C-alpha cells in the first residue's frame, strides 16, 4: 500500500516529459515578444465605470429634487 506522497512522487517521476517542437517553441516566443513590444492601443476600460457612476449620481440628484418638490 503506497501513501499519497509515494503516489504523487511516482506520478512526477514517471509522467512522460514532452515539449513543443523547436520550431513551434521559437514561433510562440517570437509572437509573444512582438506582443510585449506592440504599442498599446487606446483603452476604454475607464468608460463603463465612469458612465455607471454618472448615471447613479444623476439618479440620486433627481430623487433628492423629487423629494424636495414633494415637501415644498
Amino acid at each position, binding site marked *: 500500500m*503506497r501513501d*499519497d506522497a509515494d*503516489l*504523487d*512522487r*511516482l*506520478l*512526477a517521476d*514517471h*509522467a*512522460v*516529459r*514532452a*515539449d*513543443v517542437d523547436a520550431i*513551434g*517553441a521559437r*514561433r*510562440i*516566443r517570437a*509572437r*509573444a*515578444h512582438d*506582443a*510585449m*513590444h506592440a504599442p498599446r492601443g487606446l483603452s476604454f476600460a475607464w468608460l463603463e465605470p465612469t458612465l455607471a457612476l454618472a448615471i447613479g449620481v444623476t439618479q440620486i440628484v433627481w430623487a433628492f429634487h423629487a423629494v424636495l418638490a414633494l415637501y415644498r
Partner: protein
Amino acid sequence: MDDDPERAWVAGLRRGDAWAFDAVYETYRARLYGYLARMTGRRDLAEDLLQEVFLRLARRGRELAADTRLAAWLYTVAHHLVVSHARSAKVGLALASELARAPEPRAAGPFEALAAGRAQLAIERAMTAMTPADREAIWLVAIERMSPQEAAAVLSVKPDAMRQRLARARAKIEAALDEPTPLMRSVR
C-alpha cells in the same frame, strides 16, 4: 539579482523586460504543454493553447502584482482556456458543466506511445483513465508541487472537492501500478 528567481522574473515582466519573459517561458513551457496536451488529448491543440497562455503573459505582464505566483497565474489562464475550449467544442472534454463525469471509453492518451517502461505506461494510462477534473487536480499537486489549497484556488473549487478529486486520481494510479502486465496476465 533576487534570491527568489520568480520575484525577479515578475519584476522584469512588470517592466516589460524580454529576458524575464524568456526565463518564464523556458521554465514553464514544457510543463504547461504537458498539462494542456493531457487535458485536451491533442498535441496540436495543446500547442495553440500554449501560445495563447504566453501571449496573455506577454500582454499583461506589466499589470502583474509584485507578489504574483507565476505557476498559479499561468495554470489559471491555462485552465480557463481549456474550459473555454471544451465549452465551445462541446465534444471530447466535458470540463465545462460535466466536470466530474466518467471519462470517454478508453482511448489512448497523447503520450502513451512515448512511454518507455511499465511504470511510465501505467502512469500515462492512469491519467488517461481519470476524469479531466481529477487529472488536472493531481497534475497541479504532484507535478507542480502546489498545495491542495493552492490547486483548489487555481481551479476555483472548494477544498473538499479538491480532496475528493485527489483521492480518486491517486486510486487510479494505485490501481494502474498494481495491474498485472500482459505477460503476467497470460501466465495466470
